[in-house]
């Protein structure tokens, strides 16, 4: 394995994880709002 591979994978992984967490938070906020809007 190239000695730089862990550094590259660490960078790619962080970007993927960051984007995933942000999308998850947006989705959760949308679900919460939908539930609130549906309340009579």
């Amino acid at each position: 394995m190239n000695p730089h591979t862990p550094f590259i994978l660490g960078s790619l992984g962080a970007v993927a994880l960051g984007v995933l967490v942000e999308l998850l938070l947006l989705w959760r906020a949308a679900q919460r709002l939908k539930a609130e809007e549906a309340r009579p």
Partner: protein
Amino acid sequence: LWRYASPPHFLRLSARLLPPLWLLAALLLLAGLWLGFVRAPTDAQQGEAYRIIYLHVPAAWLAMLCYAAMGFWGFLGLVLNTRLSFVLMRALAPTGALFAFLTLWTGALWGQPTWGTWWVWDARLTSMLLLFFLYLGFIGLTGAIDEPRKADRAGALLALVGVLNLPIVYFSVNWWNTLHQGATLRPGGASMHPDMLLALLVITLGFWAYAVAAVLTRARLQLRAREQQQLLQEATA
């Protein structure tokens, strides 16, 4: 022009823009990652580690751009007192903070194999860390004030003061002796191979499309949440 400041118009327009924006972001990022991590040649001096540039530099540009946009919307909100400006300002902060964090993280992972250290207290790194803290401070401040209009104004002032840090981040590599390399793109041209430059630009556009899509999505949610809160207050009054 005023009709663009109206929340119902914004909700309609953003609903139309969001699907193509998410698609564009996904396509550009996939293409950019392939260009940068598969197609672009290996760097003669740094070997494979240089490929972190394809994430580090676009993230740094977006972190600065998001903060500049926050300052712009904050200023507009303070001058025109438009709700949509403040909502856009606040919607930018989490995405900007993510990009600032990714800049610091990928920078550390690039620094270790090339400089032999994860971190140094030099001007570029320290001013970028300050930008990240400004984002966190903005999110904390606006979240700590219950009354939305007061939170908007306090946040806008912090955003405007923080804008002063942006030229320091950008020009720090020219103003001080730092370990960090100079600007990748300069008015005279780029200091890199055309294939490398193409990958960098495609990923930057992908990050930009992602940021716009995420910010518009969050702004829509915040607008609807504010309307919901107003309806609740009117119902209980």
